[in-house]
């Protein structure tokens, strides 16, 4: 594990940049645990201060330090996005691989469910679910709901990869070597599917963050929990865009973009590392 990290850092510039970016954002986000003010506290500081030596990223109209706000917001948004991403990857993997490998009835049932979810429009369903659950709609629950809506298309991709692996000789060989279905899927097919998983993960993450922002902008969010969407929500409530408080809106977005770019670079370089083709080249022959 450690040696993989070392290899990647040493020999892959993309990984290095991605690692630095993500690491910086992560540390920055983690710093909110040590913030001088609680992240929900308001009017502790003079409002509307532009970026300065004292307040690096300025202050909001609610008298909060944008720096510390983003720190907390990115942390929460990141946990949300990553939770959605991981949960939906797990579902997509399970459904896609099982469906593609087993085929037949199981495939038909799973793909019908899958198509149903593809057809369900995300935003209205989420808004409605939020409506029904109201303040029971904690962020893990929201993440779960989003994850349940966000796996379907990727499951189809994974299924098509598994489908092509199903008839490869090594799969049939594995079966005759007595391997069980989970063994075949995890040991034999997973390495080939992982690149797809990594690739779709990034789009999924962006989708999740976008969802959070959308819900927040429309007023469906827990205002007590700072998130990127929440910051935009409060900035809107204070008409920051027309009032010239640009730092309230711009910096959180910059942070999201950097986080995304960092994770993206990590994803593509790790992808290259785990891609069976490059793995084989490394193993030599």
């Amino acid at each position, binding site marked *: 594990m450690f040696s993989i990290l070392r290899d990647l850092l040493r020999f892959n510039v993309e990984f290095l940049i991605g690692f630095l970016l993500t690491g910086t954002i992560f540390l920055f986000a983690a710093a909110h645990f040590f913030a001088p003010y609680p992240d929900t506290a308001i009017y502790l500081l003079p409002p509307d201060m532009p970026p300065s030596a004292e307040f690096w990223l300025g202050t909001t109209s609610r008298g909060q330090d944008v720096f510390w706000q983003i720190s907390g917001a990115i942390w929460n948004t990141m946990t949300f996005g990553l939770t959605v991403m991981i949960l939906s990857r797990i579902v997509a993997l399970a459904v896609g691989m099982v469906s593609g490998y087993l085929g037949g009835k199981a495939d038909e049932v799973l793909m019908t469910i899958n198509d149903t979810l593809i057809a369900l429009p995300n935003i209205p369903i989420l808004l409605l679910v939020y409506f029904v659950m109201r303040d029971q709609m904690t962020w893990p629950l929201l993440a779960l709901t989003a994850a349940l809506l966000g796996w379907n298309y990727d499951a189809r991709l994974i299924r098509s990869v598994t489908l092509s692996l199903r008839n490869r*000789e090594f799969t049939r*060989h*594995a079966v005759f*070597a007595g391997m069980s279905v989970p*063994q075949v899927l995890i040991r*034999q097919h997973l390495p080939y599917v992982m690149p797809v998983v990594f690739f779709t993960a990034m789009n999924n993450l962006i989708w999740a963050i976008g969802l959070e922002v959308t819900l927040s902008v429309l007023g469906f969010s827990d205002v007590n929990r700072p998130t990127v969407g929440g910051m935009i929500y409060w900035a809107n409530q204070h008409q920051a865009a027309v009032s010239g408080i640009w730092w309230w809106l711009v910096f959180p977005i910059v942070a999201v973009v950097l986080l995304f770019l960092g994770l993206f670079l990590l994803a593509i370089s790790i992808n290259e590392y785990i891609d069976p083709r490059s793995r*084989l080249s490394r193993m*030599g022959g």
Partner: protein
Amino acid sequence: MSALLQLDHVGRSYPVGGFFARRQLQAVKDLSFTLNADRPEIFTIVGESGSGKTTTARMILGNEVPTSGVIRFLGQDVAAIRSRKDRLAFMAKVQPIFQNPFEAFNPLTTLDFYLYSTARRFLGLRTRAEIEAAADKALQHVGLSLVEVRGRYSHELSGGQLQRIAVARALIPSPKLIVADEPVSMVDASLRMSIVNLFRTLRDDLGVTIIYITHDLSTAYYISDRVIIMHKGDVIEAGDARAVLGNPSEDYSRALRNAVLPPDPVAARRIIEARLERRRAALTEAGT
């Protein structure tokens, strides 16, 4: 005399064709033969590409269900084996060897895993030592040993070695029948011989019956006891290998037999030139 494997008027058709023009393709038509349980043999199926050899193999292995007829293995209808337990019991008796040794092993899995998995699942072995012993014993049969294989990946070994490991793995559950679908078509001439020779030892020393599928008539002649020649899903000739291949009676079999190039430039050249002559003649005829 008891039958090890009995194919009784077995047929298999596939729906094929494009979007609008769909029809049934009869990949195997009415195939019957019986392998004797008491007398191990190498039973060869030859035939051109697309003649239904692989389909037959897949049906025997239970990977494909015949659309007509039955396949019985030790009296049991293969298509009726559904439960996992029965499948495992069946697989312990019937094992496949695949065409491409590099494809048959996942390049990202160590080779010994296949051996261990087979030993654990089919022999019910639990301890590491037992499993390794079983794997080693099987490898000894093919002239390898576990030390050479342990922890290695497929790309670290030659095709011949891989194919031998594949055979060794198939031997672990002491199968009665091995189905080898074109086990040598992807390997070069010298490796080819090592595998074919191995089959012969298996038959003679371990009493395993082997269904050897190939379109290489020379090796078929070299090792088989009995042979059937398939053409477009039909068996057009069957019988003792030396007799059938040495002196085919059907037109198609003869054409096949004559197309085999001998390892001799003069003779080989003559065959090609004859073919060329026929082509030219056909062309001129069409031109006039």
